């Protein structure tokens, strides 16, 4: 659930793939990829505001999001259990259909 409650642990999420000008902490390679919420780290000042002299408020939830490497990279060993985890702020995530880990 995105909203007041935020995403739940294990919930499938997709990283939004739009381009946003300015200071953004969502890496290009993970945009559009689907993974799962490993855990919520709490709320933090928004770097997209902080980077441009703002106060970073309101705070934004930050999630540890896990992805199967084979879902992220073409050519990654399909049998591999390897994962990549990225810290992603809530406004870069949307609910996805795919199941978690």
């Amino acid at each position, binding site marked *: 659930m995105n909203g007041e409650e935020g995403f739940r642990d294990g919930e499938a999420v997709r990283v939004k793939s739009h381009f946003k000008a300015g200071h953004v902490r969502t890496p290009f*390679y993970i945009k559009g990829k689907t993974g799962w919420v490993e855990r919520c780290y709490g709320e*933090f000042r928004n770097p997209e505001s902080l980077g441009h002299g703002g106060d970073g408020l309101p705070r934004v939830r930050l999630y540890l999001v896990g992805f199967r490497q084979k879902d992220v990279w073409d050519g990654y060993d399909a049998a591999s259990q390897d*994962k990549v985890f990225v810290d992603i702020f809530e406004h870069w995530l949307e609910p996805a259909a795919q199941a978690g880990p």
Partner: protein
Amino acid sequence: MAHEHGPGEEHEAGPRHELSHWAKRAYAMRALLIEKGVVTEEDIRQQAELTESRTPANGARLVALAWTEPEFKARLVADPKKVCAEMGIDATTLNEFVILENTDRVRHMVVCTLCSCYPRPILGRPPDWYKSFNYRKRAVNDPRGVMREFGLELPDEVEVRVHDSTADMRYLVIPARPAGTEDLSVEELEKLVTRDSMIGVMDALPAVPE
């Protein structure tokens, strides 16, 4: 370090002709910040000293204790900043601090692809290779290849978890405790905990046979 002058000093005794464009501007900005009363020489000197005092020994102490005391490890994992404070490690500048524990089945490796975020209070300044473009480029999509370059060949059944620490979290890896170290003291164990093993690209050093 073989420097005649600390960064808080004026470098009266040049010559500094070998300085690059940006190095000169660093000294100019320093002089201007002091002249304008924004910071003092003492502020800069103290900061440089604090930075020098932060070394991987801090992390090694945490790891060695975590290896030997399960109760300590549980507290470290649950609240790393609190444990650092108890141990006199100033981690207050870290927004959040997360411990990743390697096991026989799962290995962690840390990178920051967007800049070079690093748990400086725990490990000191990041090494050059960590800041290199090739590490930032390859760590996420070729972690096994990176580890191979560091001398570590991982079996397929071990799961590699790369952490791209792009936001407020800073990560420290607890490497697996080397075999045959049951009788070593915490101080002896600390010596086996290398910086690179706490970033996750290598194992801790093997126990030195007697």
